[in-house]
């Protein structure tokens, strides 16, 4: 067995190994001094051919294309190992792995960074991406013992969630779910809502998630609209051969208000959930099904929620170089809507200026039902050593009903998408990605009307290796037509470079991003606080130029640093405009903005290798530039400082750790600028034990029960204790 450091270029070799007859790679995966590892992941990099080991630690990868392939074995708590093997057509090659625990003293080999698939729409080593990418691995997902994808992504460097709305380097602020400036993908398939453009973070059960990649900065040159501030790609698990099952049960409780004058109920709020996954696979076809749900009493008044979900995935590999994947999910939420908290006179205020755990009586009885689901299918074919292609189709459907006293709203939206993508290696050191994409969105709603939007796009990007440098250039053109009207075009170019030096890998990029207005922003027609919200069909896309200069370096065997300077100039931002003269609100292209700053992340194993620590810091200068009569001012809901400290200690099968997240006080907020506001200081603690097929994880979120809010008059989660028990077969 060989454990090797991967040369930087090796990840692209997969395209050169194709032949007419299949080969087989087989072997075992052992943990150092613990014997066979069950359910370790073994993958042939490139074509993403993978499997899991059985109880004896055995694996078998058939349908491997002849040639030189890179095989990776990894398992939670162990350092991944790589092996480069040469297989001939019709031959079988054995590759055995012995994985070292990630906490043992002295690492005798270089640990190669993870492979990412989002930054360039193809597999590449993380250090070769021209923009910053944060990866939330399956190890971190398990360690954090969270229930939803947004909880898992929340602590990633440079990422901040504001009441379910994701911000990457301050991209979106808080716009109450209308129009995200971040694009969400599920296995590479766009999944922002067809009507509002927002993101349903509960679309995919967390049980199904393998890892999450977060690409920072404008990504429209490959992904088009909404990728103005970044892209979040939720990658689902590969299915292992044989029969596997997993049952996860969780329970928890919410802390009561820390002051008696804030008490709002006579019992302790609880949450409980149960989900199960079953899968069966052969070398030819594999399938998995997940189902479950959870209930929460919520941590404040009128905050109960029920959630049901199911998901399925099918993986068919009829030929060595051909793979068809189909997946889908459906989730339904029924939840009380707490709206804003109560201020003096709005409830039983007990003489207080505000009651953060209670709601205003005007919002009593508000309730929402939200259903969402998607299906997608992707056909991948590696046609030759130099050429591979894939085609995919997808359908995302969302439905909501807001029940508010005297003011019910509802809407159904669809988003149909299709993409054809090709990857070519026309010459040594050159990789070219080209593709075409189409999408149709429609909505039928009492407040958004009946409308549709068609989008077609073509894109291409080429990477050329020149010595130690990799130069990238590409562009995408999007055509958008609303309600069958005339086409409007948006061009999004991007250039970048990566230079590997003794001082680490330097990266630089400049790209243009855009976000087309959502159908909701164009056509919303409703009433808010007596003001009439009127449509604006003439809205045009908002755009931004993003520049980044970064460096990723391992400054010692136990310390890795990634730092990036970023600068974004945004134009024609879509924001609500209030006209008191007419009593109307309308979305308009009004603002110009500048977002610049520093992203720094550092991971280290100080003191003892059993202890892993991480620091992530983002400094953000976010200003709305002067326009019309509005002077320059801070952008609302953006923190100047965002700091996350993490530490985890592992001793055999027991682990313990925590995160501390500091969010500086917002310089400016909207709606209630006179309200007291504080910095966010949240400490999360966790502990876990694994024994055989069972694992128990405990989590104490907001351990100090720090009471704060980040969006107007909306209490952030209080201390929550949860325990998750997982059984794996």
């Amino acid at each position: 067995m060989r454990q090797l450091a991967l040369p930087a270029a090796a990840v692209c070799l997969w395209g050169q190994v194709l032949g007419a007859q299949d080969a087989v790679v087989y072997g075992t995966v052992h943990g150092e001094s613990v014997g066979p590892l069950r359910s370790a992941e073994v993958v042939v990099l490139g074509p993403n051919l993978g499997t899991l080991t059985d109880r004896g630690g055995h694996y078998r990868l058939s349908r491997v294309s002849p040639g030189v392939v890179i095989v990776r074995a990894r398992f939670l708590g162990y350092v991944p190992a790589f092996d480069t093997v040469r297989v001939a057509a019709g031959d079988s090659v054995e590759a055995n792995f012995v994985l070292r625990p990630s906490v043992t003293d002295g690492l005798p080999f270089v640990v190669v960074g993870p492979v990412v698939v989002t930054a360039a729409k193809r597999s590449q080593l993380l250090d070769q991406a021209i923009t910053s990418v944060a990866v939330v691995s399956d190890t971190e997902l398990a360690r954090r013992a969270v229930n939803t994808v947004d909880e898992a992504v929340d602590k990633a460097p440079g990422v901040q969630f504001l009441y379910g709305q994701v911000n990457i380097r301050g991209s979106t602020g808080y716009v109450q779910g209308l129009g995200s400036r971040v694009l969400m993908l599920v296995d590479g398939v766009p999944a922002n809502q067809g009507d509002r453009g927002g993101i349903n973070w509960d679309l995919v059960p967390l049980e199904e998630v393998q890892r999450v990649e977060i690409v920072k900065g404008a990504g429209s040159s490959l992904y088009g609209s909404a990728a103005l501030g970044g892209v979040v790609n939720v990658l689902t698990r590969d299915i292992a051969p044989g029969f596997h099952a997993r049952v996860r049960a969780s329970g928890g409780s919410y802390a009561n208000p820390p002051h008696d004058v804030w008490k709002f109920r006579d019992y302790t709020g609880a949450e409980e959930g149960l989900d199960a996954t079953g899968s069966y696979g052969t070398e030819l076809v594999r399938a998995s099904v997940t189902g479950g749900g959870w209930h929460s009493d919520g941590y404040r008044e009128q905050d109960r929620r029920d959630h049901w979900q199911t998901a399925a995935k099918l993986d068919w590999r009829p030929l060595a170089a051909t793979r068809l994947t189909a997946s889908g999910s459906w989730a339904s939420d029924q939840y009380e809507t707490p709206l804003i908290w109560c201020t003096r006179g709005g409830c039983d205020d007990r003489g207080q200026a505000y009651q953060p755990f209670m709601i205003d009586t005007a919002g009593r009885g508000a309730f929402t039902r939200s259903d969402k689901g998607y299906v997608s299918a992707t056909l991948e074919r590696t046609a030759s050593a130099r050429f591979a292609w894939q085609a995919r189709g997808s359908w995302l459907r969302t439905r909501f009903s807001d029940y508010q006293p005297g003011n019910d709203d509802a809407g159904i939206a669809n988003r149909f998408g299709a993409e054809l993508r090709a990857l070519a290696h026309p010459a040594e050191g050159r990789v070219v990605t080209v593709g075409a994409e189409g999408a149709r969105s429609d909505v039928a709603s009492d407040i958004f009307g009946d409308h549709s939007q068609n989008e077609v796009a073509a894109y291409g990007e080429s990477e050329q290796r020149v010595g130690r440098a990799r130069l990238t250039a590409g562009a995408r053109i999007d055509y958008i037509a609303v309600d069958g009207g005339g086409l409007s075009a948006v061009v999004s170019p991007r250039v970048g470079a990566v230079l590997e030096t003794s001082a680490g890998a330097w990266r630089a990029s400049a790209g243009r991003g855009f976000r087309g207005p959502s159908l909701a922003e164009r056509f919303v027609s409703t009433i808010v606080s007596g003001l009439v919200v009127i449509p604006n069909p003439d809205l045009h896309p908002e755009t931004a130029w993003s520049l980044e200069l970064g460096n990723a370096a391992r400054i010692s065997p136990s310390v890795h640093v990634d730092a990036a300077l970023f600068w974004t100039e945004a134009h024609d931002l879509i924001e609500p405009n209030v006209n008191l003269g007419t009593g109307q609100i309308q979305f308009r292209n009004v603002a110009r903005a500048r977002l610049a700053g520093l992203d720094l992340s550092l991971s280290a194993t100080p003191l003892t290798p059993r202890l892993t620590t991480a620091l992530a810091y983002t400094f953000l200068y976010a200003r709305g530039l002067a326009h019309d009569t509005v002077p320059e001012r801070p952008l609302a809901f953006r923190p100047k400082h965002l700091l996350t400290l993490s530490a985890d200690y592992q001793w055999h099968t027991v682990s313990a750790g925590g995160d501390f997240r500091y969010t500086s006080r917002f310089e400016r907020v909207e709606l209630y600028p006179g309200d007291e506001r504080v910095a966010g200081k949240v400490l999360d603690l966790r502990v876990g034990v694994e024994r055989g097929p069972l694992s128990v994880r405990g989590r104490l979120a907001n351990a100090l029960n720090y009471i704060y809010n980040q969006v107007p008059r909306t209490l952030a989660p209080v201390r929550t204790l949860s325990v998750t028990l997982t059984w794996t077969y």
Partner: protein
Amino acid sequence: MTTRTCGAAAFAVAAAVACNKGLEPALAPTSCPQGFVGVCGTVSFVGQVPESTARVFVVAFDTFPKSQNDLFKFKPQPTPPNLPLGGPAFFYTLPLPPARYEWVLAVWQKQGTLSPTNADSLLRETGFYRDKGDTTAHGSGIVIVNAGTGKDSIDFVVDFNNMHRVCYYFPPCP
């Protein structure tokens, strides 16, 4: 224990201590709070609150509305503060930008979806501030809000037995 361990422990303790200060209970003010910009005062209540009440809130107009179209030029936007639905006298605070205001009033809102076209059926004037000695129909209550300070003693009565429709000010009533 090594120096580095001590440093790490000290850092952890410092971080933990630093955490423990968030929002805390705040008694409702009885006079304009320091640094508050707007008007403050005491509202007392008369009469029985109608069952169809959605809410009662307090707003200000810099000039008295000249037509129904001006009714939505109130401040503060978009959501003025609520008043309780009756009960003992209530001290209110109304955040406003520094300016001269001609009309500070309480508005009763009936249950239902409010829009400019149905304002007459869903909104009632239910009390307003007036200068001493003023006898005009809508009241003359000039209030000057200066930068950096609150204007105190803008007291008035909310009378649920004597509420006025929009058309009372902009006749004729249908």
